């Protein structure tokens, strides 16, 4: 793999950019691999990358029904933060956030990480108390956050109206080192690095079944024939229940559409990420100038990537009070992604009832921010059978009642 650098740009500029190679290969599948990962989204690719980088396991295939990064990795609102209440959550999300800081250098691929700061608005007395508590918890966890008052909020984000009659801004939880990254680049960067290690990324290859023998996984049936493996990682987000069904077990998940929308591009007006959980809305401004707005999930199960219109109406109607200027913006695009939600709003990174088969799912409405940490921990789990990062996120927590309850801290907006 040729390294990307300022020198490479200069060199290619002198020869009409004919020297760029393909970022990743498009190989024919082998008969078998040591490890097969289903799902070439951020989490699947990150898992494969850290399997290779941290454990030297490179005989790996990443199988993808569509194109890489074409699912929720390409549909989210790109927010990165780690201000969670519970210790296991803070540990894995902070691991992810800290990996994001050096990821461009690590992958030699510009993921455009922008630590512009994330502000979670407190708009009710209950939220004020909740976020003060989270800030205390974060300081014990080594995550840098602080609770700031309404005047400080106004100073950080001048376009905000803090005196709204219905949703006044009472303060906020400020994580200065949170931010955003280019979501596609995260998938592309990991894919390029995986391909460079000799891993096979098999796009347009649909898994149709999981084969097993004596309680252990032996491979997967795909649209391009049977592919054998010793270990299988299921990393398919919204379709986790569907693939788990092929492997013969059920999951404590419900899949629902989560919606987002972007406006026409405007001049820079907001240089932070703002989340308003009371009104189920969050907003940031992309490098292109579009206001990126995320909304809430449907209440009922769905695999249709649209979502109900009234949720968008509610989100935008409420955000307009806090951001009066967006009332006159035209919205350009709107889409939905299918997210898999657990009862305690925390992910599942776990062994499964099927031997050699592991699952990474349940990231719900907030998976993008966790990609590097999730891949790091899940790779360790797959390679060694246990990982301190994922220990609390096992499937057995549902039977044993050890929930990691983030429904208060992270119930809606991620």
């Amino acid at each position, binding site marked *: 793999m040729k390294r990307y650098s300022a020198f490479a740009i200069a060199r290619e500029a002198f020869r009409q950019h004919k020297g760029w190679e393909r970022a990743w290969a498009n190989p024919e599948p082998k008969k078998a691999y040591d490890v097969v990962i289903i799902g070439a989204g951020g989490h699947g690719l990150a898992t494969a990358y850290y399997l290779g980088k941290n454990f030297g396991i490179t005989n790996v295939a990443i199988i993808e029904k569509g194109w890489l990064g074409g699912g929720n990795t390409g549909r989210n609102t790109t927010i990165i933060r780690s201000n969670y209440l519970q210790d296991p959550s803070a540990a894995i999300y902070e691991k992810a956030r800290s990996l994001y800081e050096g990821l461009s250098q690590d992958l030699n691929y510009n993921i455009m990480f922008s630590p512009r700061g994330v502000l979670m608005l407190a708009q009710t007395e209950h939220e004020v108390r909740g976020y003060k508590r989270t800030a205390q918890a974060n300081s014990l966890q080594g995550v840098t956050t602080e609770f700031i008052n309404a005047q400080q909020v106004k100073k950080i984000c001048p376009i905000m109206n803090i005196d709204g009659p219905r949703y006044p801004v009472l303060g906020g939880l400020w994580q200065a080192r949170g931010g955003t990254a280019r979501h596609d680049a995260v998938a592309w960067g990991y894919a390029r690095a995986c391909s460079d290690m000799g891993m096979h990324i098999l796009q347009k290859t649909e898994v149709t079944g999981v084969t097993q023998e004596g309680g252990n996984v032996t491979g997967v049936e795909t649209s391009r024939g049977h592919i054998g493996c010793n270990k299988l990682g299921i990393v398919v987000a919204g379709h986790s229940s569907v693939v788990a069904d092929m492997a013969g077990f059920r999951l404590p998940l*419900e899949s629902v559409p989560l919606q987002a929308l972007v406006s026409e591009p405007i001049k820079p007006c907001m240089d932070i990420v703002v989340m308003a959980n009371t009104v189920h809305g969050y907003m940031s401004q992309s490098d292109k100038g579009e206001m990126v707005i995320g909304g809430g999930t449907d209440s009922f199960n769905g695999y249709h990537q649209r979502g109900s219109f009234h949720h968008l109406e509610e989100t935008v109607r409420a955000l307009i009070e806090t951001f009066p200027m967006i009332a006159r913006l035209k919205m350009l695009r709107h889409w939905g992604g299918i997210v898999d939600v657990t009862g305690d709003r925390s992910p599942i990174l776990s062994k499964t009832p099927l031997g050699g088969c592991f699952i990474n799912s349940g990231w719900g409405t907030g998976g993008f921010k966790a990609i590097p940490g999730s891949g790091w921990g899940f790779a360790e789990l797959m390679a060694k059978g246990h990982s301190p990062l994922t220990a609390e996120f096992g499937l057995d927590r549902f039977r044993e009642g050890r929930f990691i309850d983030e429904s208060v801290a992270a119930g809606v907006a991620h």
Partner: protein
Amino acid sequence: MLTLNCPYCGLDKDETELAYGGEAHLKRFGPGSTDEDFESYIFGRENPKGVHFERWRCASGCTKWFHAARCTVTMEVFGTYSAQTFEPPKAIKDAISKKRPGWTWRNFS
């Protein structure tokens, strides 16, 4: 906007007038049951991509609970029926078979 017909009051209701109640036809396991059965009852879900049976409440209407058969991909509604039953009535199953031949859901088909 999803619209369901409440089988009790007979009115077509928009989703904003209804409350979702999750998967239908769960068999309850309470005190004295095994951990596996209890966990499966509380947390294990079909979450299918396709035909699904679910509970809804006519929240801003007659307030009664009822059941609906729906496709989670196309949002097509195959029919609604009384909650006073352990399995979908034959008319509902036939309506699904017409559109989705060979469908299965838990023990139903």
